[in-house]
């Protein structure tokens, strides 16, 4: 069957080459058979006619050239390696008949078809490792060295309508599905729907996975008000809408969660947790941009764990956040230089048995500057009250230096000075190795 095709195709290719010649011959006769020119107008008419015919011929020739090329490609694919010689011969044959020597296919250099391998439908898989070490006094919680997290990511397009993201984290406390959600990418009306377990779109740092952080730790406000490393992460639905306008990127998000996270603990099926966010972004110049957001979250939160493991009481809790990011990255030197400045402010309000309107406030301000191709220097100021003890305020100052051998690994050193509300101050030296294998992840922005 294959050999029949191989024999047939050169024939049809040859027939195609002949076609334009015969067409032109016919048109040429008709041009010649017109009466001889008697005056300048007639000569002009004949010239115009000839020019038109030439143009038509040119168009035809090109069309046939392209069809030839397409046929050659198909032939090469059909013939494959088995009939490699035959296809090469077929490609060389008609090439002599064409008049566009510049065209590479005509020179017998067909484009390279790349077959999709048998594993083509496997998801993109990557694994991130995070090794954290600490030299510290007065910090019993910090292990001298630990594999703080291994995260496996599986991502793929599900069908024409959706994509899937799975992130499984293995930490000292065991394995946990960090995120697993479907994103519907083809909804009308500028809508984007996610369903599954995910990090809530509350502020900036809550959405970042551990390996994407610019420092070895999360800010104090995360630990004190936003549920620590795991953060506000729960099973739920997230619907976001892009408000079309010519001025700014404006996105509003509404999310509903089951109410089982480090931040919210629901005491009844119907008492869900809700998150809302509005984000505005605008390029200032091609190298600088500003990103502003405000978030709100409310739900039920448990207070005090009793002997039976249950909460002693469950109350309403509300969080409000504001975040601002400024980025500078000169496009011509994007490999060597960038600056990110970010601040996030969070207000927590909770009905505690002792204080029906317990309000705590926390914030961080972060700066990170890339000063060489592989080197980043950063600093962060932290201040945060505690959700259940608003009068207690912790403070911290950090500087960190990161070396990126490549995009796929980082070595970081961080000095952190922590001043706890109780009056204890701890000086800590953290170091971190992060590494990533597998599919190329999206750049963090």
């Amino acid at each position, binding site marked *: 069957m294959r050999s029949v095709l191989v024999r047939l195709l050169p024939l049809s290719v040859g027939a195609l080459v002949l076609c334009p010649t015969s067409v032109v011959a016919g048109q040429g006769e008709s041009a010649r058979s017109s009466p001889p020119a008697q005056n300048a107008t007639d000569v002009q008419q004949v010239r115009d006619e000839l020019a038109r015919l030439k143009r038509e011929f040119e168009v035809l020739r090109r069309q046939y050239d392209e069809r030839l090329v397409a046929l050659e490609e198909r032939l090469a694919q059909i013939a494959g390696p088995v009939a490699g010689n035959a296809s090469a011969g077929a490609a060389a044959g008609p090439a002599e008949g064409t008049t566009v020597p510049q065209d*590479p296919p005509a020179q017998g250099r067909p484009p390279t078809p790349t077959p999709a391998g048998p594993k083509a439908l496997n998801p993109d898989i990557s694994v991130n490792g995070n090794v954290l070490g600490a030299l510290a006094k007065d910090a019993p919680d910090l292990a001298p060295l630990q594999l703080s997290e291994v995260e496996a990511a599986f991502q793929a397009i599900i069908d*024409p309508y959706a994509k899937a993201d799975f992130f499984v984290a293995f930490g000292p406390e065991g394995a946990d599905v960090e995120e697993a959600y479907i994103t519907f*990418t083809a909804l009308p009306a500028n809508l984007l729907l996610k369903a599954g377990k995910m990090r809530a779109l509350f502020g900036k740092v809550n959405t970042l996975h551990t390996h994407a952080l610019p420092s070895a730790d999360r800010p104090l406000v995360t630990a004190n008000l936003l549920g620590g490393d795991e953060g506000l992460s729960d099973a739920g639905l997230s619907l976001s809408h892009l408000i079309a306008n010519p001025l700014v990127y404006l996105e509003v998000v509404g999310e509903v969660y089951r109410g089982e996270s480090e931040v919210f603990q629901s005491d009844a099926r119907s008492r869900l947790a809700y998150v809302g966010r509005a984000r505005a972004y605008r390029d200032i110049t091609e190298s600088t*941009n500003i990103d502003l957001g405000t978030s709100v979250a409310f739900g039920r939160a448990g207070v005090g764990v009793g002997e039976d493991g249950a909460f002693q009481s469950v109350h309403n809790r509300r969080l409000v956040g504001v975040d601002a990011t400024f980025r500078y990255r000169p496009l011509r*030197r994007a*490999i060597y230089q960038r600056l990110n400045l970010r601040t996030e402010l969070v207000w927590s309000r909770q009905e505690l048995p002792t204080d029906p309107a317990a309000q705590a406030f926390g914030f961080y301000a972060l700066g990170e500057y890339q000063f060489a191709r592989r080197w980043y220097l950063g600093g962060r100021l932290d201040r945060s009250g505690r959700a259940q003890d608003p009068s207690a305020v912790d403070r911290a100052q950090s500087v960190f230096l990161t070396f990126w051998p490549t995009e796929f690994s980082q070595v970081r050193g961080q000095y952190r000075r922590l001043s706890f509300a109780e009056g204890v101050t701890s000086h800590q030296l953290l170091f971190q190795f992060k590494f990533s294998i597998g599919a190329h*992840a*999206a*750049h963090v922005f």
Partner: protein
Amino acid sequence: MPSAGLRLVVATALAVAAMGRMPAAGRTAPLRVVATTEDLASIARDVGGDRVAVVALAKGYQDPHQVDPKPSFILEVSRADLLIAVGRDLEIGWLPALLASSRNGKVQVGAPGYLDASLNVRILEIPTGQITRAMGDVHPQGNPHYWLDPANGRRIAQAIRDKLGRLAPADRAHFDERYSAFDQRLAAAEVRWDRMMAPFKGRKLVTYHRSWPNFMERFGLDVIGYVEPKPGIPAPPAHILDLIGEMKRHAVTIIVVEPYWSLRTPQAIASQTNGQALVLAPSVGGAKEVTDYVQLFDYNVGLLAAALKAARGGV
């Protein structure tokens, strides 16, 4: 059972609503085309003419690997009727993120409004055998800088013409005509470039990154080494010394550099080899003068021919 009057009112309302959604006859809005690079945007403008409104995301003087997935790009992709990508993983770090947030089903991978421009072009340096990142940031699907061969530019234009023709069948003849004009302009320019580069066939040179294999192959030049020891890996001193030795051995004096690299290392090498670091435009927009695809080669061929003429040796 609704009355006939009610049915009539409903039918009229539906018809009016349907007409409201239809574009006015004869004044169809141009197709919104978003191209990931300025090269693709330039070719799309050449083929689409006034029937398309084209926007490019990455700038020509920017490293196309190192583009941030900015929300302003999401906005562009969200409005697109057609997205044209270079493919071969060039945009792997940023395009998937833009597509996922674009809320635009028309241009998702595999949808009618998505075009991977690399599918019918000639791709070089497709790795064979085992590949690992010990080889640097390798592209498993071959070298993505394929647009730097005008023959591939022609194939990209064909792919864009066919895609535009499918998205706007009424304008197919227009796209055919514009493609033919582009093809002829390119063919004429190729004669010019070939004539300019003919005396230098077989000459050897060095490039910073592996951005130029298609270009060098097209004009018969021989790249004997790279400033980067491996893609995406900065050069250690030992590699630089080796490269200088190699350049001296072959009397190579020209180091081709993309505009987004620091010139410090190439100039240090050039000072040791009596050579020059020659900044060429890897993309449309890579230099001020380079405003379209044909000018991209005019600019590069002009600079390179002048430099090769001035440089003796390297044969």
